[in-house]
């Protein structure tokens, strides 16, 4: 459905670091403060707050108390890597319904390997996956990548093109943790993690936070003259969940894309911020979005230049593969980069014609399938 009057008005990103003494709350506060300062918004104007994290404390009222926010709307946008896009959808609903005029949405993490990662127990994962010595998301994507390679002849070199293009995009992004060029040899020779997934297929866990500020059109006009509208958005949760033999090489993004492109033509998108926990996830989403036929993704990425100055710009700031994944800031990184591009503020990696961006989020590993949560949105700059 086309949105009528919801705008992105600001954003904030912390520095990313491998480890951090600072708590996730401090990262949140840094990202929010930066977003407020960028737009000249006072703390008192915040009516809504959404948080997206895998770490404790993870309740939005608790976070609001710590940050001193009195609110009319809160959300725990904990939908895995789709949490960013799905939080935007829910905040936009609240704005369109007239409940609030302005919401701050934040995602982040403080990563430290020395403390065990605590998550609520999901019994199917505990009883039917972990007991076998599973390798986590790396293994899930390995199962999917193997199927894609065997079925469609997708090659490691084709997947490497995605990782390498994103690395080139990161070279001029000061936020990125990886800013040295990557060669095909580097990619192909990186350490094997869960065959056929190698080290340079995987995002690096790190610390940091991302924030976006969403407002009603009227409120947005009082804040900025760089108006970026939320045009349309969609989600699909647990696609194929009742299928006992699912097609692992197609995500819910297929349905999301069909809905998005009812409102905006596929050809009208200038840049793509595609959730990239792995190159194979990017490739499958390009297929599912219909930019090529299923199975043709490998040939598609061979035939296009995916860098910020190319003909099909993907993850123009380097994506999570080169910037790092600060927990569920990952779902916001792509929205923030799209916003930077549409506002003409992506210094050193600015896409020439950046009027319309497509952003996706995917997350939540489900049993024997692929992804539980998938979502997408289209943003547009207007005068």
């Amino acid at each position, binding site marked *: 459905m086309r949105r009528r009057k919801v705008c992105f008005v600001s954003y904030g990103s912390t520095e990313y670091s491998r480890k951090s003494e600072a708590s996730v709350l401090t990262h949140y506060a840094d990202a929010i403060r930066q977003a407020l300062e960028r737009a000249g918004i006072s703390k008192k104007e915040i009516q809504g707050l959404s948080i997206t994290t895998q770490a404790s404390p993870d309740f939005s009222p608790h976070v609001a108390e710590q940050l001193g926010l009195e609110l009319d709307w809160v959300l725990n946008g904990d939908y895995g890597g789709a949490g960013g896009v799905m939080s935007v959808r829910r905040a936009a609903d609240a704005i369109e319904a007239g409940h609030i005029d302005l919401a701050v949405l934040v995602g982040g993490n403080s990563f430290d*390997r*020395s403390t065990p990662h605590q998550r609520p127990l999901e019994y199917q994962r505990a*009883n039917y996956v972990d*007991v*076998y*010595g*599973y390798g986590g998301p790396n293994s899930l994507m390995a199962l999917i990548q193997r199927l894609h390679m065997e079925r469609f002849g997708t090659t490691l070199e084709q997947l490497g093109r995605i990782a390498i293009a994103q690395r080139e995009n990161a070279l001029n992004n000061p936020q990125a943790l990886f800013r040295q060029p990557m060669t095909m040899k580097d990619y192909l020779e990186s350490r094997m*993690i*869960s065959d056929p997934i190698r080290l340079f297929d995987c995002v690096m866990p790190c610390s940091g936070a991302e924030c976006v500020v969403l407002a009603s059109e009227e409120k947005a006009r009082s804040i900025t003259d760089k108006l970026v509208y939320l045009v349309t958005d969609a989600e699909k949760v647990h696609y194929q969940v009742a299928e006992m033999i699912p097609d692992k090489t197609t995500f819910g993004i297929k349905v999301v894309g069909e809905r998005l492109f009812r409102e905006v033509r596929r050809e009208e998108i200038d840049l793509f911020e595609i959730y990239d926990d792995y190159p194979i996830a990017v490739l499958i989403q390009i297929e599912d979005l219909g930019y090529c036929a299923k199975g043709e993704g490998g040939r598609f990425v061979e035939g296009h230049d995916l860098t910020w100055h190319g003909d099909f710009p993907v993850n123009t700031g380097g994506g999570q593969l080169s910037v790092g994944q600060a927990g569920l800031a990952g779902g916001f990184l792509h929205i923030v980069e799209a916003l930077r591009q549409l506002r003409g503020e992506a210094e050193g990696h600015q896409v020439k014609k950046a009027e319309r961006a497509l952003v996706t989020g995917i997350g939540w590993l489900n049993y024997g399938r692929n992804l539980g949560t998938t979502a997408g949105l289209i943003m547009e700059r207007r005068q």
Partner: protein
Amino acid sequence: MAEATRTARSLPKINPVDRPYWEGAAAGRLLLQRCNRCGKVQFFPRPVCVECFGGDLAWIQAKGSGTIHSFTWVRVPRNPAFKDETPICYVNVILDEGVIMESRLVGAGCERVKLGDRVRVAFQETSSPEIKLPVFELA
């Protein structure tokens, strides 16, 4: 900074929904749920039929055979307690009853595994006398 806690190989935490499954496995039988209303067979065990949402689910014994749908060699397990067993051949098997099952491939010849290979269930002892893990071997 807190020191990393030493983790053990995890075991299933049996609950009322999947108790028959684990009791079956301990007795060397692979059990699946079948809906008494629509007849759909499903895995993993759940409180409802995911097809018709019926709540009357029976347990049937699977033949224990299937084919390799996909596999990966886990070199970095999420739980470090499994490190000395790496590389672990983690598989998706499509059972002949038409459900997908995640497990591990063990035994002779598993280093040559490929998609479509036929497999048979086996039951692996664990540190708990009540729990055996359904794993697969090349048929």
